[in-house]
């Protein structure tokens, strides 16, 4: 199909399968195929499809690592997501990246619920040489976050990364808890958190849209970290999230080590999807 301009029904079917198997989703696939069918045939079809998908993913460049402009200190990152998506490991990877740029980083363990969650983040902070703020299991997560912001500000740290407990977006009391963490941080430091990242497992199917929607009702989501892209899952669901919620993917998690984080590259992501 690669070089062809017009498409037969069979070829459209093949493209549909390719999109579906990548978790693009039936509705988003329909929209892409409609654009292909209706669009001009001056270029090969796959090239047009690639351009269409890139267009969807190229959302206005919001805040990111390098360009938050003003020297806010500490820059506060809030890391959220459902259970097991890779939040704690992503906090470690983000810290690693910031430290390698010469920044002073503190990790805050605001998961006060899950067994050994604090210990897990503490171990990462040891390996990274990052600062660490934590309390104990059962403490109020909003208080831990509040104290972390205060301590990071007083110590002149450049970045504070707040790791939160995994939570299902459908549980109201957990969404409320997240909202409380978010607003409490803002009380301690107006404008914070400056970057709220939704950590999304690339193996997740259509449920990712519901996750992004419901979490967006309690916090402003600045970007997505799409983890476990070193597997065979394509993570195509981020297209629907980009279209419906205008949330961009900022980083890709590609392994379990502290260096396994890449800034999101829409071009290579789309290529990976279409291969």
């Amino acid at each position: 199909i690669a070089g062809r301009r017009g498409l037969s029904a069979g070829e459209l079917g093949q493209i549909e399968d390719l999109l579906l198997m990548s978790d693009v989703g039936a509705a988003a696939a329909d929209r892409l195929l409609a654009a292909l069918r209706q669009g001009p045939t001056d270029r090969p079809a796959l090239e047009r499809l690639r351009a269409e998908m890139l267009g969807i993913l190229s959302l206005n460049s919001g805040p990111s690592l390098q360009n938050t402009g003003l020297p806010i200190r500490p820059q506060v990152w809030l890391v959220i997501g459902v259970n097991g998506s890779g939040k704690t490991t992503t906090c470690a990877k983000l810290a690693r990246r910031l430290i390698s740029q010469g920044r002073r980083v503190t990790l805050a363990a605001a998961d006060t619920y899950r067994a050994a969650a604090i210990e897990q983040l503490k171990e990462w902070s040891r390996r990274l040489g990052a600062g660490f703020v934590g309390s104990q299991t059962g403490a109020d997560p909003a208080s831990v976050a509040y104290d972390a912001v205060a301590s990071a500000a007083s110590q002149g740290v450049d970045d504070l990364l707040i790791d939160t407990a995994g939570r299902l977006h459908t549980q109201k009391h957990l969404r409320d808890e997240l909202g409380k963490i978010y607003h409490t941080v803002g009380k301690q430091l107006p404008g914070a958190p400056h970057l709220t990242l939704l950590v999304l497992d690339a193996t997740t199917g259509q449920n990712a849209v519901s996750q992004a929607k419901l979490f967006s009702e309690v916090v402003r989501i600045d970007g997505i970290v799409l983890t476990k892209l070193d597997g065979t899952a394509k993570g195509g669901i981020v297209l629907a999230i980009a279209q419906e919620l205008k949330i961009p993917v900022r980083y890709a998690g590609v392994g379990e080590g502290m260096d396994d984080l890449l800034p999101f590259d829409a071009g290579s992501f789309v290529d990976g999807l279409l291969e």
Partner: protein
Amino acid sequence: SLTEKLTGLFKDLSGKGKLSEDNIREASQKVKRALLEADVNYRVVKDFIASVEERALGAEVLNSITPGQQFIKIVHQQLSATLGTRNEPLRMASQPPTVVMVCGLQGSGKTTTCAKLAKSLLQPGRRVMLAAADVYRPAAIEQLEILSKQVGCDFFKKDTTDVVDICRSAHHEAVKRLTDWLILDTAGRLHIDQPMMDELKALQSAVKPHEILLVVDGMTGQDAVNIATQFSQQLELTGVVMTKLDGDARGGAALSLRAVTGKPIKYLGLGEKLSALEPFHPARMASRILG
């Protein structure tokens, strides 16, 4: 819901006399859409729709006075039947300890599931041991140790990175302590990470588990087929556990898993609490997937 959509569709059609093949195909397209939205793998969907159409194009539906209801019934029956017979619990071995090895992708819920299983198996007069065979993830061993205290069962760890040694030693200790159930919690791994898959194979031949359970996140999408294929080809799986189904994920991966592995889904994880483990009910899962 799908049932409402199909009922509406057949209401429009049934007024026009006997149903045609085209009517059936229109209805099956609605089912196809619902299954894709529920994360059933697109190839599994095609096969499933083909089998539904085959039945639906028979007299059973076309000659029925309530063809809509008949069609919906076929879809539901076909789905439940494919999902398997209900309630296949863990089978106890003839000689204790019964060894259960738990494996799966990163973050799928293995450690929590091991503790939930231990809790459900810990009945009066029974002895259960949890063994920590994840030597990679920071604080993985601490996590399982804390959970085993919450469950009130025995716990085994060994200061080595040799996972086969850990599990062999755990087995030795379990025999000494007249343990009924030995549950091995392993590290999360990718099905395409061959050295890590080889580690599971080495465990399988060293410890000969009576049960090998694949733990899969209930929100898993199309990739369920890839995961299931590799794990079932490389290991002698005996069952599957699907976790995090206390959310709004439709759980279509269940159909993909069953279609690829042929193994029963034994349990569902329905929460973070250690009591949140339920035996699998195919009919209930069918309703959930269909939406």
